[in-house]
């Protein structure tokens, strides 16, 4: 299983702090403060969600578990097994019907692909996906929208945005549906310019 890591969220200072925490006893961590004056527990509640996704600050019974997980966390090992998918910070994917959930800490390529196959609208929850995502998804995907087709030529979102830009139409649209909507609202003159542009590309 290819595991993703949230360790990229840690600064150099956080990494140093993590090493200090690893060297401290349970009693020190729960009762004393770091040399910066901040209680170790406060640092633990800040670091834990950065690495593992979520924390309950009002659940004293969970503190030993948090400390144990932080002490056993090997950021270097995790970084070496990075996946091609990366969720936006704080994103949690629940598995409906179970108490299980995925974050960057335990997300695998397989789970990410299944998640996206279920609904391509979920793509926006990722900050990083493989370049060949379409190929990986194959045809087995719930697509909300059709392709962007201009003059019988299919374009991806970036290419279509570039074409619109070249006819001086600026848009914030980031989805196929959005781009198609912008195109449908072009004036006759703009549509003509777009068609000519695509015809020119066909000839190249």
């Amino acid at each position: 299983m290819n595991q993703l890591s949230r360790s990229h969220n840690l600064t150099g200072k956080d990494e140093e702090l993590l090493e200090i925490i690893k060297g401290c006893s349970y009693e020190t961590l729960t009762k004393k403060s770091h040399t910066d004056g901040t209680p170790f527990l406060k640092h633990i509640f800040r670091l834990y969600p950065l690495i593992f996704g979520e924390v309950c600050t009002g659940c004293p019974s969970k503190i030993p578990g948090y400390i144990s997980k932080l002490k056993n966390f090997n950021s270097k090992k995790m970084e070496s097994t990075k996946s091609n998918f990366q969720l936006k910070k704080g994103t949690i994917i629940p598995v409906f019907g179970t108490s299980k959930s995925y974050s960057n800490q335990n997300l695998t390529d397989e789970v990410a692909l299944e998640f996206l196959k279920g609904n391509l609208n979920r793509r926006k929850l990722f900050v990083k996906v493989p370049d060949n995502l379409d190929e990986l998804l194959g045809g087995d995907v719930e697509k909300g929208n059709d392709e962007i087709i201009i003059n019988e030529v299919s374009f991806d979102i970036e290419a279509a945005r570039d074409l619109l830009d070249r006819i001086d139409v600026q848009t914030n649209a980031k989805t196929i549906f959005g781009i198609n909507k912008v195109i449908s609202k072009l004036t006759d003159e703009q549509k003509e310019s777009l068609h000519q542009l695509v015809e020119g590309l066909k000839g190249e």
Partner: protein
Amino acid sequence: MAENCNSKLAGSFAKRCGHKAKAGVKEKYYINHDDIDFVGTQTARRGTSVTALVLKAGAKIYSAESVNAGRKVMHALAVGDYGNGYTHTDTLIVTYRGEEESERIQELVDGGRVVTINRMVDGGENGETSYKIAGLESGMLITNDDYDSSANNGTTTLIVATKEGEEEATGLKSWSEGSLADTETWISENLYEPVEPEP
């Protein structure tokens, strides 16, 4: 999923100098509760904020247009023996009850469960509270379809609300897709547009 089971206050209610609270809803949209992808939708701040609203493939949101005073949304805390919750209530004054509108109302009467997105007049200091979502967790069901030919200028008052026993965990949820521009883009990309009949 509970994000935090801490029940202590963790901050203050700070004075926001220069900000004047304002009433009103500028825009309103309906969503079918079943059209929301709850696996993908993300919340934060103990469920009071929606940071990513994800619709199921092919689903759309529907605009609910009315006169200025014809859009309203509210919540009320319901204190219960087994936990507190919120009742969300959404009101729309339908000024034109044509064939299309009558059919939409009947869909609600027949059991349609909806969620509403509301663009508030008061967007907060930096536009961060511009959008509020009602009924996200349980959906809302129709409670009123009031029409009187001799009252309210012949308009129809349509109210959907949280069903008793299905109270929401939070009040109206703030919604932002990252920035106000991103949220507006999301709306524009997911807004249903009726297909014009061929001439």
